[in-house]
């Protein structure tokens, strides 16, 4: 058991003219080793939700348990929590600051108080894991391309070897190729290390292929929380809240409506291909 959210609510600028309820009585349980997609429209509360998981925001109501401990307890070490729950923010520009990429990746492990040798080793390993070629290690992070910056930023977090890895829109602003590469890399690491991964996105297409569980947020509520194919059954409701199911879901539903005997379960292009091939025998 890694996370339990018990009736968590969060309001921005409480008791002023600008008060906004970002989370409204959210109850969730997240287990070890899960690969989860958190999906929602802009302003649905998905970013607010994940910032609670490593204690960057404190719930106005309710509480959060990490590995059985209440993270809002007086003597709970939030800094330690943040080392165990790694979070990569949407814009790599927000965290890159050192003179070289390598030094920047060292920042996290150094803060953990590891000996110099381990820091270097961790940084090296992390950079290799994100697939950043060695020739970029001594380059200023500001000279990297968008996709490379993102890799460097992710390396900066996984170098701390967190139990849980949270990524806020890791593919925003990337071209389709860069997007697939980053997501493949994340899925690959999840398969190898078996850590918990939480992927935040507003694109169903992005996550459908990778995750085992989707949490759909809408107006600060958890609207759906299920396996992808179960969630996509509600594609009409998803549309109402400004989201969409993957395109193959629409295709399969349309084929079924036209009287063809296919299952509407397919969520990825490959599954759809299989189903159609089976149909035409």
């Amino acid at each position: 058991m890694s996370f339990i959210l018990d009736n968590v609510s969060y309001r921005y600028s409480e008791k002023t003219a600008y008060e906004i309820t970002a989370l409204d009585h959210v109850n969730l349980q997240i287990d070890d080793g899960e690969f989860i997609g958190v999906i929602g429209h802009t302003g649905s509360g998905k970013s607010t939700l994940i910032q609670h998981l490593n204690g960057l925001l404190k719930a106005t109501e309710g509480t959060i348990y990490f590995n059985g401990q209440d993270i809002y307890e007086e003597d709970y070490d939030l800094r330690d929590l943040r080392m165990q729950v790694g979070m990569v923010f949407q814009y790599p520009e927000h965290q890159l600051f050192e003179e070289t990429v390598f030094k920047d990746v060292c920042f996290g492990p150094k803060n953990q108080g590891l000996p110099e040798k381990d820091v270097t080793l961790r940084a090296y390993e992390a950079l290799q894991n994100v697939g950043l070629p060695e020739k970029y290690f001594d380059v200023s992070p500001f000279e990297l391309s968008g996709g490379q910056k993102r890799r460097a930023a992710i390396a900066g977090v996984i170098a701390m070897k967190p139990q849980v890895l949270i990524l806020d829109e890791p593919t925003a602003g990337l071209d389709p190729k860069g997007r697939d590469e980053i997501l493949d890399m994340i899925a690959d690491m999840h398969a190898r290390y078996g850590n918990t991964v939480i992927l935040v996105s507003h694109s169903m297409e992005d996550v459908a292929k990778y995750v085992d569980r989707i949490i759909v947020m809408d107006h600060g509520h958890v609207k759906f929380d299920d396996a992808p194919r179960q969630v996509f059954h509600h594609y009409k409701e998803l549309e109402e809240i400004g989201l969409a199911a993957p395109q193959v879901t629409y295709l399969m539903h349309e084929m079924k409506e036209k009287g063809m005997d296919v299952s509407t379960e397919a969520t990825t292009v490959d599954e759809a291909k299989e189903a159609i091939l089976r149909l035409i025998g």
Partner: protein
Amino acid sequence: MLRDITLGQYYPADSVIHKLDPRTKLFATLLFIISVFSFDGIVGFIVMTAFLFGVIALSKVPLSFMLRGLKAIMILLVIAGLFNLFLTPGQVLWSIWKIHITREGLRNAVLMTIRMVYLIMGSSVMTLTTTPNQLTDGLEKALKPLQKINVPVHEIAMMMSIALRFIPILIEETDKIMKAQMARGADFETGGLVKKAKNMVPLLVPLFVSAFRRANDLALAMEARCYVGGEGRTKMIPLVYHKVDRLAYVVVIAYFVLLMVIKVVL
């Protein structure tokens, strides 16, 4: 966190004061401040208090917001008050050891405290009911005559509104960067002064980089839309005086004249 800080601290409400032209409010505030510092006497202060609280009531802004501005200068007020109280020479009212409280000292302390409080509250009424953009618009128009003596009024106003416009953005950005670094174990709170300053580097570098990038983007966007400065530039929402504004001018001037009369008569 940092999100709660607002500059200009505009309080949205639907009131007569909110609807006034920013120039009217600038003029009224200026006149009110002059009046607070040039008149005294009990009757005078009763008139000022009535005027100030009348305007606050009209503005529909909760009084607690007005008093918020006072918190920042509380210490200054207390120190200045005590200095005035103990260090003004004159007729001694009360004394212990070497400390004397004089009639003049008491009077100065009370007077100065009231003046400072009214100064802050008076300008708070303006900043709480006017958006920063309206304010710069008003300033630009009010200072227009200075253009004749080669003061770049438009440019100054433009810089002001750009600066004001970017403050909330940079605050939000700072908040995000802090979070991103805290997620990597950065510590902004503990440690001595030197350590604290050193810990700011991971915050300041991305912030500066982003500020320069934003400035660059904005300059490009302005040039792409053929911005060349104030020459021949028109406003999307030109400032026009309405009936309320004329009425407000009459009220404010009447207020000032009343105070002058009180001063002369009493």
